[in-house]
């Protein structure tokens, strides 16, 4: 993507019908570290890579509880993500207060999308620079949505966003058809394996990732380090024999980087 004369304002169309500022905002999502979501009929798992500014600092929080039945994982400008998470928590709790019943996740994502759309149509605003993977429960079961800075939202069986998410997406594409019927444990395992894809050869440790689960009889909560390490141990012990391990290496090498050439060192400090 190159600079052009139509990209200064979000309220300026290009002659080919594009809003470049919105597209640039979507680029910001790709700069953040990976976040992954997958769902079965009854559960949703959200996982993210823990990236720290430096060795001295702690890692940024990328997964937030919105309510007992809704969680969100973000990639991109974490400050924008934090503000939107607060908005989601507010909407959810207001609904609970008035109706004593959980806000259907489908309705929450529409409100979120409408909020994002406003920023694409005001000359004094800028689009939110964060992509959100919203997982939650509804009357009709478990759902996973992806909210875009453009104001669009899509429903997914499984999805990955952020840097090197293509590797994870490839892994998920191979396995997604079985997710609906997956058990909770298999779903968690698949999430961690997908995270591993984004690490490109770096050894997978439980300190490197955050995993959260919610389900029909299970309020949103994070898995502790021990549980994550246990799952990792079931497949990390025999990396050569593991069919996925071999393919993962080949995939990681071949996966195109969608950062426009920017390596980790060039990531702006405000994005994680």
């Amino acid at each position, binding site marked *: 993507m190159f600079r052009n004369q139509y990209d200064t304002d979000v309220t300026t169309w290009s002659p080919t019908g594009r809003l470049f500022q919105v597209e640039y905002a979507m680029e910001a999502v790709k700069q953040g570290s990976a976040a992954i979501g997958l769902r079965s009929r009854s559960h949703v798992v959200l996982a993210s890579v823990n990236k720290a500014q430096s060795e001295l600092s702690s890692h940024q929080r990328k997964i937030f509880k919105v309510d007992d039945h809704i969680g969100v994982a973000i990639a991109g400008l974490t400050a924008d993500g934090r503000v939107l998470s607060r908005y989601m928590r507010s909407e959810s709790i207001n609904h609970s207060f008035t109706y004593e019943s959980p806000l259907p996740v489908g309705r929450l994502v*529409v409100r979120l999308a409408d909020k994002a759309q406003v920023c694409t149509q005001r000359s004094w605003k800028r689009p939110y620079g964060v992509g959100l993977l919203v997982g939650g429960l509804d*009357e009709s079961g478990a759902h996973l949505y992806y909210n875009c800075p453009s104001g669009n939202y899509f429903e997914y069986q499984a999805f990955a966003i952020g840097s090197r998410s293509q590797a994870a997406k490839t892994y998920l594409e191979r396995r997604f058809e079985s997710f609906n019927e997956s058990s909770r444990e298999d779903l968690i395992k698949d999430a961690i394996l997908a995270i591993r894809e984004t690490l490109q050869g770096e050894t997978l440790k439980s300190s490197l990732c955050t995993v959260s689960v919610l389900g029909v009889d299970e309020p949103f909560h994070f898995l502790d380090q021990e549980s994550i390490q246990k799952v990792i141990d079931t497949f990390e012990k025999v990396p050569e024999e593991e069919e996925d391990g071999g393919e993962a290496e080949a995939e990681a090498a071949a996966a195109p980087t969608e950062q426009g050439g920017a390596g980790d060192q060039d990531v702006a400090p405000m994005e994680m």
Partner: protein
Amino acid sequence: MTFTIPIDNGDALKNAEADSQRTLYPYVTGTSIVAIKYKDGVLMASDMGGSYGSTLRYKNIERVKAIGKHSLLGASGEISDFQEILRYLDELVLNDNMWDDGNSLGPKEVHNYLTRVMYNRRNKFNPLWNTLVLGGVKNGESYLGMVSMIGVSFEDNHVATGFGNHLARPILRDEWRADLSFEDGVKLLEKCMRVLLYRDRSAINKLQIAKITEEGVTVSQPYSLKTFWEFQAFHNPTAGAQGSW
């Protein structure tokens, strides 16, 4: 029944205007509602009277209405406030339908929404002068609850408003069972309504019984209860009386 708040600023004109915007007392009122959970859902009975003080002015008022797909609302108290509440709920159901997403408001949600509305109005000293009964069935679960004009709200297996609390609830406490059939449920409600007919001066002998189940709502056509006035004690009521009582 007066219901004014003393406001201490000397401006009588301003005060008058402010007070005329608040509910001070009800004008056209409906009397008791009696409702029970039964095997397949909820049954709700009410008569069709609207009293204007002590006059039985209106005799064709429907005080039980269906709300959305899953709920039934009955009201006693000020009829115009009931109509206002129906308008609020109409808007609520409309917006819920507009989402068009497979989710729908159940009786619990409607009950809590009404509780919020009633309590907020009470806090502004401008209550909706009703006691509401909300019953419904969603996903096989029956729900029955009540909200008063001051925002007191609760759920129970059987509820009644106004006089019904004093005359019908004791009968229900003795005779209600969780597995009542439709016929037995109606018989039980009719027993309560008959007592109310005899003893509540604002009750009229024209009632409707509404039923809500997983399938939906049906409101019966208005009908009358058989009454019996030939008790011996009524034949010569003043025999043996001393004084004017």
